[in-house]
């Protein structure tokens, strides 16, 4: 099948949507499909081999954080040409409401479009103002996918209509097989708690971790916290009540992240919001870490209401500390939880998720083919 995937955000900045697009393209290519990705970029050399550059990138504050988007007449013309020349069986647009390549591709589309909605928090005021203008484009979407129940609810409430839920995917085997690093592995006296997320993004919950720290260290003085993520490390270190407890790894490459999650005893996800799915939980589960996470709706669903990880009250450092301590103090139940998490993570493996995406593509194609055959039959009569 010829599939054209449109990503609205630039690949130079890591992000959930970009990773999803990259992994989906990689997996589908591996299965023998012809896949091209269109993403904002000035220079095609910075893109993965399966991607094309849509044009200039502008950093714009959108939906609560700064996004690197691409728009304007030059980009619009390029997107239009890409859509027309690609001759795709299915055009798969991600985040169709972001003011970037996706919306432009939707505008240019003449063939059936599949759209994936990732976010669970649309700016409703901007949406309401622009909605009448967007509606004709949105009507071109033949099949809507939401990555989580929360994202689906956003579609139902803000866009109208419905969507099928196909979650984000993870290459679970890469996480399960990641080599453990001795320096990141915990011992009974010095257990390791891992955190992955940007330090300067409050919704990732580093602040909750910082405040939970003294309580954890009071009970388990040897506990080590390994923190991976971009941000101002010096400022973060200076604000710590107990600097000896935390080791900052900075921004780590993918292999290191996998090794970190595989080595850690506990993965702490103290996010306070803004998460529609919680891919990092699935990654930690797949790597075999026991998970303690805030009880956001998305996390609750991934963790099977606590069956595959411990949940604590969102934004409550004391509750976070208690959840971490409960896991650190009981290695047997921690191990059991980690195993059950690893099994549960398989539901999000790309082999399963991509098959569901393909089922959506094929359902859309089946209608096109059957309809065309019907028209030809009628034409002959």
């Amino acid at each position, binding site marked *: 099948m010829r599939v054209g995937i449109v990503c609205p955000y630039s690949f130079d900045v890591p992000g959930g949507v970009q990773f999803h697009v990259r992994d989906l393209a990689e997996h589908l290519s591996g299965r023998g499909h012809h896949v091209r990705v269109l993403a904002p970029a000035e220079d095609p050399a910075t893109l993965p081999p399966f991607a094309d550059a849509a044009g200039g990138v502008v950093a714009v504050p959108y939906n609560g954080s700064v996004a690197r988007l691409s728009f304007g007449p030059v980009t619009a013309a390029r997107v239009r040409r890409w859509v027309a020349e690609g001759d795709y069986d299915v055009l798969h647009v991600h985040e169709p409401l972001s003011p970037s390549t996706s919306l432009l591709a939707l505008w240019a589309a003449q063939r059936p479009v599949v759209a994936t909605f990732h976010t669970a928090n649309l700016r409703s005021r901007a949406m309401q103002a622009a909605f009448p203008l967007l509606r004709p484009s949105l009507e071109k979407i033949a099949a809507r996918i939401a990555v989580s129940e929360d994202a689906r609810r956003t579609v139902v409430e803000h866009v109208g*209509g419905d969507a*099928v839920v196909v979650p984000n995917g993870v290459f679970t085997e890469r996480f399960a097989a990641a080599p453990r690093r001795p320096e990141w592995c915990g011992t009974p006296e010095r257990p390791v708690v891992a955190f992955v997320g940007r330090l300067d993004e409050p919704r990732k919950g580093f602040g909750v971790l910082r405040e939970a720290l003294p309580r954890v260290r009071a009970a388990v003085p040897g506990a080590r916290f390994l923190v991976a993520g971009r941000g101002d490390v010096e400022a973060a270190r200076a604000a710590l009540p107990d600097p000896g407890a935390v080791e900052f790894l900075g921004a780590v490459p993918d292999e290191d992240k996998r090794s970190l999650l595989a080595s850690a005893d506990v993965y702490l996800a103290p996010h306070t919001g803004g998460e529609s799915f919680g891919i990092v939980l699935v990654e930690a589960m797949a790597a075999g870490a026991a998970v303690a996470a805030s009880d956001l709706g998305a996390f609750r669903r991934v963790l099977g209401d606590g069956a595959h990880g411990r949940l604590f009250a969102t934004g409550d450092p004391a509750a976070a500390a208690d959840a971490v301590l409960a896991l650190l103090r009981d290695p047997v139940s921690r191990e059991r939880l980690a195993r059950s998490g690893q099994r549960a993570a398989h539901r999000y493996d790309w082999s399963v998720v991509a098959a569901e995406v393909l089922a959506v593509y094929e359902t859309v194609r089946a209608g096109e083919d059957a309809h065309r055959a019907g028209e030809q039959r*009628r034409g002959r009569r």
Partner: protein
Amino acid sequence: MNDPLAWALAGLLTLCLLAWYLSGTAQRLDRLHRRVETSRAALDAELTRRASAALELATSGRLDPAASLLLADAATASLDAPRTPAALRDATAADDVQRWRAESDLTRALAAALPGTGEQQVPGATGAHEGGADADGADPRVRRVREAAHRVGLARRFHNDAVVQARRLRSKRVVRAAHLAGHARLPETADFLDGTADGGAPPGS
């Protein structure tokens, strides 16, 4: 603005804008009607696939005789139910009602014969990797039925989505006043049980 020429120009401009708006709306409506037709064709194809797969399973001797008979009966009824005509405007409400009743019956028969057929059980999520968690997952006939049932759920949702949007646009005053819909039949949602969590509930309600 006493100049008759200015008045004529203003009138012409208004007419042009109106024509542009109407043709744009007509194009949207045409696209939505096409989506209704293609998604209905997809639903039709997936339902036929599900019924054939169910019939194959029923006659394979894999199920107990009672379940086999029940499933064969429901699958044949679905295959015998009125098909969607090549042109959707030839479809009748009575045919649709009969069809959806047969499909709901097949969904119930499948649920009885294969507990857990529906969207909760994603095809591929169980089976080989879970190692015996679901022994049925290994049988290709069962897998085909489950996959087809999953696709029916997708196709029904996509179709109903198209129908709701088409009906929304057609209910606008401008569309009715200008007769933009022509003689196209007002599309109806496909209301039958498909085994998904909200299966059978009309969308947008």
